[in-house]
């Protein structure tokens, strides 16, 4: 599980991106992080994995407090899927991309191969193993990026706008796939119907603060609430 207590993040140029946020995501729980562009979704996710340091507050994962010493352990437990799959796929072959994390864990090449094959086949993309990411479709890239994280065998997964750049079919495929993943999930998105289908819980973010936290189905149909967050309510 992920626990966040009173964290704030300010960028070097002085922009206060998130302030005083507290929340907890339980094991196996799926929560959507909803907010307009610039609300602070990406910043919050990056601070959970310690890419952006929080200037105040505490972050802990499975009871391990995020700090200098625990950084790699926290990153092993929380897998982050970036908004742009091209940021995550940089090796010549999908195999190497997925193997990248396990290799960094210092596993033997046989163990690495096992993990890669398990990750790829659980997502139904075993056939992409020896392909180059440069020649994949948007939907395939997205799923390959998820595989790179899955191969780390995390307990929690966080996603930054996973439906961005996807066509309806790829989006549907992704929804089915995310619903099957047993991990605890925090998913940043402004795709409300996607949020409703995948996450029973929603957290609304506005100007770097939590604005509401509740059942997705209710929150996203609340015109006033959604309007104040700068997101169009679902009808």
């Amino acid at each position, binding site marked *: 599980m992920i626990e966040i207590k009173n964290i704030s993040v300010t960028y070097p140029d002085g922009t206060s991106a998130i302030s005083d946020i507290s929340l907890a995501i339980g094991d196996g729980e799926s929560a959507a992080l909803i907010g307009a562009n610039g609300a602070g979704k990406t910043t919050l996710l990056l601070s959970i994995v310690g890419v952006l340091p929080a200037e105040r507050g505490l972050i802990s994962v499975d009871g391990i407090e995020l700090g200098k010493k625990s950084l790699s352990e926290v990153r*092993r437990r929380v*897998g982050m899927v970036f908004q742009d799959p091209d940021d995550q796929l*940089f090796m010549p072959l999908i195999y190497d991309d997925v193997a990248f994390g396990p290799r960094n864990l210092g596993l033997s090449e046989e163990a690495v191969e096992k993990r890669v094959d398990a990750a790829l086949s659980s997502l139904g993309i075993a056939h992409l193993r020896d392909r180059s990411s440069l020649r994949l479709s948007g939907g395939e890239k997205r799923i390959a990026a998820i595989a790179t994280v899955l191969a780390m065998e995390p307990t929690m997964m966080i996603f930054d706008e996973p439906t961005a750049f996807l066509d309806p079919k790829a989006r549907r495929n992704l929804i089915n796939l995310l619903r099957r993943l047993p991990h605890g999930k925090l998913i940043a998105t402004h795709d409300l119907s996607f949020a409703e289908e995948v996450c029973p819980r929603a957290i609304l973010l506005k100007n770097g603060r939590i604005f509401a936290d509740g059942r997705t189905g209710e929150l996203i149909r609340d015109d006033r609430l959604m309007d104040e967050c700068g997101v169009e309510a679902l009808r």
Partner: protein
Amino acid sequence: MADIRSKIADIYSLEQLSLKKSWVHDRHPLVKLASTFLFIILVVSFDRYELARLAPFIFYPVILMALSETPWPIVLKRFALTLPFCLFAGISNVIFERKTAFILMGLNISVGVVSLFSIVFRAFLCVTAVLLLIAVTPMSRITAQLRRLHLPDIFVTLFEMLYRYIAVLLGEASTMYTAYMLRSTEFKGLQMRHMGSFAGQLLIRSYDRAERVYNAMKCRGYDSFAARGKKKRLSAADYLYLAATCLPLIALRIIDVRAAYSIVF
């Protein structure tokens, strides 16, 4: 420029071969690095007018290619890219060294021409040897092995980054170029007066991208010091590979094979 993405994929297509299975692919990266290194040292060590004694070295790439089932066109295409550079390096010899080396079918062949051929052939051998190394060993294992050999970490990391960065840079450039062309009315390609801001944007963008890629790498446990990987011990087959490549090469360097030519011909 529209299909630049597939061009980028082309750059890495050689490495794609490195995932195939063959006896050569299975060998330890250390022995492959060692034999490639030795091969290059030996080829370069001949004097600049040498051709006859260099000729048998062609067997190394030819046999390796056959064993690893590496297609010739991929390697030749890449060598062709370096050809202008070696021609450029050798052409001055042709101009300045006109002394006759030997006469072939009534034609005076000058020392300069011989050295031009020697330069091109040598470049061909060395480039092919490196390309073959890449084609039969995944890049990540080559760099892990370089680290284990205690090459300064900063060099290996820089090399890795550069290798990846080419694709990032080209990808950003193609996206920006497409966006530019869609908005430009004259359809004449990038104009001089926009060149500066285009280049500046490209730099900033690729820097941003590189940073995000690096973040994504760190999130999956990347730490250049850990990238050394586990040690794998050399097997009997690895020693065999080492002996089978290095011993004949060394013999070819020591023994003057021209004597053998005169027996055959």
